[in-house]
């Protein structure tokens, strides 16, 4: 449909505005490409950590790797929000270009924008909703986020192929001294400065939920690393997990089962009599917050050794929680063997609160928070 006269006039006026030109689009496009590329790679790592394919083993070191990758994932996603809105605004006049397509290749290029724009907007707003623990979608967020990411990234590859030459040309213009610059380049610079500043402002108001020296600035963060039971956040409470009675019951036992020579069953009091070890480890949530704490408890490998488990075994850790998606987590052989992989009874010198997994929780290096299983009741050796 041919645009109306007023739309054409607006579009043509925009053609003279450097905020809508190729250089602006190229600069924003490169920034967005870096953000989406970072989000995609860190998102893949998080997905593989939680749903490991057969060829993937979650490394135990560096201990804070997941904290960094998932913090980056969320913060680059937040940074991309103003960048994407600005990019779409800059390119919007071209939505009503006429003729709408000039060749088969141009038609393919424009059709590929549909999954790109829809996917990019969808990923950012639903990702934001997720870190705020708001779940408006009819489907499970992580699965939806993962598969729409592939669609979006595929469309981004098409877009990069289409704009490769244009972007290189737009960015390779020689720098012009300030006094010789047209007034228009000032308009572009001011626009991009404002967009960058808005991105920076949003990141600064959230980053403190994982970069703890910035916690004082974290005024729009959905979590604060120092607020919660025992001074750090809780993802799932004991009440919502339905373990308020079973976790404190005298019938509680930790059982080591499966491929072991000597099955073990220990009461909460007997767990406290085992040799205790300390480790300072972060608890890092998929939603982008993290907090480093001093944990103490029993080394997982010591328990397995006492039970006569074969070396190099992996284990499944089961919670008292029934039916939750994260009631069981897998621990690879490398993580089992790590001296800092603990079944913790205490944090920062105090007995674990019920919300943090009393009487016993798993804490290990480089594990997503949902895999730091709370209210542990069974270790099954594979």
């Amino acid at each position, binding site marked *: 449909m041919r645009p109306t006269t007023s739309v*054409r006039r607006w579009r*043509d006026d*925009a*053609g*003279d505005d450097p905020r809508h030109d*190729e250089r602006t689009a190229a600069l924003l496009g490169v920034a967005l490409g870096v953000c989406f590329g970072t989000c995609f790679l860190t998102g893949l790592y998080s997905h593989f950590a939680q749903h490991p394919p057969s060829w993937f083993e979650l490394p135990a070191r560096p201990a804070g790797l997941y904290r960094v990758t998932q913090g980056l994932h969320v913060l680059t996603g937040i940074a991309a929000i103003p960048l994407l809105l600005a990019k*779409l*605004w800059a390119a919007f006049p*071209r*939505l009503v270009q*006429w*003729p709408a*397509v*000039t*060749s088969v*290749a*141009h038609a393919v*290029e424009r059709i*590929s924008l549909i999954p790109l*724009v*829809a996917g990019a*907007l*969808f990923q950012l707003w639903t990702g*934001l909703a997720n870190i*705020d*623990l708001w779940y408006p979608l*009819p*489907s*499970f967020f992580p699965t*939806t986020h993962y*598969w729409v*990411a*592939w*669609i*979006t*990234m*595929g469309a*981004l*590859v*098409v877009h*990069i*192929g*289409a*704009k*490769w030459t*244009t972007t290189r040309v737009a960015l390779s213009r020689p720098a012009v001294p300030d006094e010789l610059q047209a007034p228009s380049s000032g*308009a572009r610079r001011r626009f991009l400065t404002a967009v960058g*500043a*808005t991105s920076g*402002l949003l990141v600064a108001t959230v980053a403190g939920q994982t970069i703890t020296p910035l916690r004082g600035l974290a*005024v*729009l963060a*959905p979590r604060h690393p120092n*607020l*919660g039971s025992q001074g*750090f956040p*809780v993802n799932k*409470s004991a009440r*919502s997990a339905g373990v308020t009675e079973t976790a404190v019951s005298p019938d509680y036992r930790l059982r080591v089962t499966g491929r072991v020579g000597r099955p073990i069953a220990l009461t909460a009091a007997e767990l406290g009599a085992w040799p205790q070890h300390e480790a300072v480890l972060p608890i890092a949530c998929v939603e982008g917050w993290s907090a480093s704490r001093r944990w103490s408890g029993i080394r997982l490998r010591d328990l397995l050794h006492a039970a006569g488990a074969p070396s190099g075994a992996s284990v499944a850790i089961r919670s008292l929680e029934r039916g939750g998606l994260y009631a069981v987590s897998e621990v690879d052989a490398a993580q089992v063997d790590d001296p800092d992989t603990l079944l913790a009874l205490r944090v920062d010198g105090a007995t674990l609160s019920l*919300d943090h997994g009393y009487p016993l929780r798993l804490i290990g290096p480089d594990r997503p928070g949902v895999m730091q299983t709370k209210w542990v009741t069974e270790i099954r050796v594979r």
Partner: protein
Amino acid sequence: MNANDRSSPRVDRHGVTFWVGVAVGWSVIGYGIWGYVIHVGRPVETARWVVGTLLVHDGLIAPLAVVAGLVLAAVLPRGIRGPVTGGLAATAVVLAFSYPLLRAFGRRADNRSILPLDYPRDVVLVCGIIWATVALRLLHDVVRHRTERGKRA
């Protein structure tokens, strides 16, 4: 093509790079669609949200932003137009970003560590930073303007 139609399509080069991008990109899109259909629960209802996001942006938010820009350009004096328009745009982004926090959709009675802050106060604070920056920019423009006028005199 109309010679006066200044922003009619700029034809990008559709060479080898483009077609390699199309082949690789659409293979990845195809993989994504396959996984989406197989693994995402209620794929049709969810797809409505994906498409709806595009329609709401392109059909509502973006046109409103364009109209707001035209109205501001018509009513604001030239000297303050840029910083004030930028301030309004940044404020709109901060408000949209903060919407789930302000509505407290995620808050749970049994877990006070979720959304633990006073977000209405904090949004006012962040918007205050934006408008303080706008005010400083305007002040800077006034001082520079007077200095330049003084030099000319």
